[in-house]
């Protein structure tokens, strides 16, 4: 018996639109990724406010202090149990800013305090910063619209 030869053409899909779309998606995610988020501690529930101003660009030098509701401070990925123990880290940060030519009064300290933390702890944290000649504080809140 004689078999007919099959027509074996390779079916090729046009991948161009898919690749275009995929590159667009990658570009979108690359532009929206925010590495500053690494300094946010997600467990901290910020108080809400409708009047707070959104951050306007980056300050000359800034760093974030996260204050948890149990009074511990998260700074630079470390959890510090007592506010008083943060002094050496603050000094290190001030020295790093000074090496970049930013004097302490121009350093912005962003305080992300948990809404249920004690106000006295926030004040203690500010005092510790003041002892290191820091005087510009930004109390971070969640924007409410």
């Amino acid at each position, binding site marked *: 018996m004689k078999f007919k030869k099959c027509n074996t053409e390779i079916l090729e899909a046009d991948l161009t639109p898919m*690749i275009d779309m995929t590159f667009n998606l990658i570009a979108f995610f690359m532009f929206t990724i925010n590495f500053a988020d690494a300094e946010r501690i997600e467990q901290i529930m910020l108080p809400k406010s409708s009047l707070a101003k959104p951050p306007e660009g980056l300050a000359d030098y800034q760093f974030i202090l996260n204050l948890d509701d149990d009074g511990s401070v998260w700074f630079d990925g470390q959890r510090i149990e007592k506010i008083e123990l943060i002094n050496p880290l603050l000094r290190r940060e001030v020295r790093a800013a000074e090496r970049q030519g930013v004097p302490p009064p121009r350093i912005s300290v962003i305080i992300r305090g948990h809404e249920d933390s*004690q*106000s006295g702890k926030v004040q203690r944290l500010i005092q510790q910063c003041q002892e290191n000649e820091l005087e510009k*504080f930004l109390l971070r809140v969640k924007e409410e619209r």
Partner: protein
Amino acid sequence: MKFERRKKADELKINMTAMIDIVFQLLIFFILTFKVSALEGDFEVKMPLASSNPASMDEVLPTVIHVGLTAGVERNIATIEIDDGMQALTFTQADMFQQLTNFVETTVAREGDPSTASEVEVEFEIDPKLRYRFTVDAIEAVSGRVLPDGTVKKLVSKIKFRPPVE
């Protein structure tokens, strides 16, 4: 002369498989690490350590409104005490933050006279046990007021805290 028929040119094909694999891996990485975070804003507080130099005689001292926040049951706010040197009031009702805004607005309007050339400052004395959210509510109350058309009327921008009593 007889020309040889040209052989059909081989199509040059680039193997895209490796690139597509990498691109999809990148895409998956970005999708999995993508986080929709809530918008955040700031209240700016400028607080240098108290200067040891006394103010000069020519310097116009700002009007300071002292605002005391006291904590009550479950560290919630109990009262707001206000003193601007001319009158002292205590608010205890549920709309105490609204009353605080009204008070500050009146003071700012009074001190807004250019002849006085002074600015209004608010100094907070806060019960250390008070929940931080009420401190923020109080800062919001003195910072401004949202008008019915959605715009914000700014009131006080100079805010400081009295050092906590140990």
